[in-house]
């Protein structure tokens, strides 16, 4: 497809389980971002990948969160030992690396931790 693709679209898990969320960016977009949106709140920055540079992990809320990206393609966000406060919509976005580049978002992965 032409847009950013995320899977799964919905995930319900039990507290303490690990989850993995996947993002396929737009082809040719060197920059990839993960954001989180909790219910009724704004977009919270998690992590940023740019090409082969070291990722900016400054937004990851705890060491239970990690993300990987292979080159300029797929990224996975992993949450270990999920907690109820991890329930949110996890949004992935990609962009061309330039000053005036805008982000193109996927539809998000809604995570519910019971």
């Amino acid at each position, binding site marked *: 497809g032409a847009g950013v693709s995320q899977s799964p679209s919905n995930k319900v898990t039990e507290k303490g389980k690990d989850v993995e969320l996947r993002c396929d960016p737009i082809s040719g977009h060197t920059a990839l971002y993960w954001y989180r949106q909790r219910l009724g709140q704004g977009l919270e920055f998690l992590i940023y990948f740019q090409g082969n540079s070291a990722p900016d992990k400054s937004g990851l809320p705890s060491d239970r969160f990690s993300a990987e990206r292979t080159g300029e393609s797929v990224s996975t966000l992993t949450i270990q030992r999920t907690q109820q406060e991890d329930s949110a919509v996890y949004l992935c976005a990609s962009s061309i690396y330039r000053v005036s580049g805008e982000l193109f*978002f996927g539809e998000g992965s809604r995570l519910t931790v019971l």
Partner: protein
Amino acid sequence: DQQVKQNSPSLSVQEGRISILNCDYTNSMFDYFLWYKKYPAEGPTFLISISSIKDKNEDGRFTVFLNKSAKHLSLHIVPSQPGDSAVYFCAASSFNKFYFGSGTKLNVKP
């Protein structure tokens, strides 16, 4: 510490009138500002942007104004239409890192 703030969580406007959504920021190093629109169960979609070297950018019914001295930007929608009802996010970027406000839910009444 939130660097981009949208202080109005919601706004209700009559169809055909002007909608004005506001956004404040704290970091003078931001070089680009954007507005995104989000419908329920969808990802945000880009609406309009402005470079920090400009003070106005217009695209059809949408105009973004930037007041750097006040660290304030606004989005004007004229005339407002019911299909504009959505959550609007303000964003600012510096070195390709994007910071978002908490959003304003716009309701345009027919």
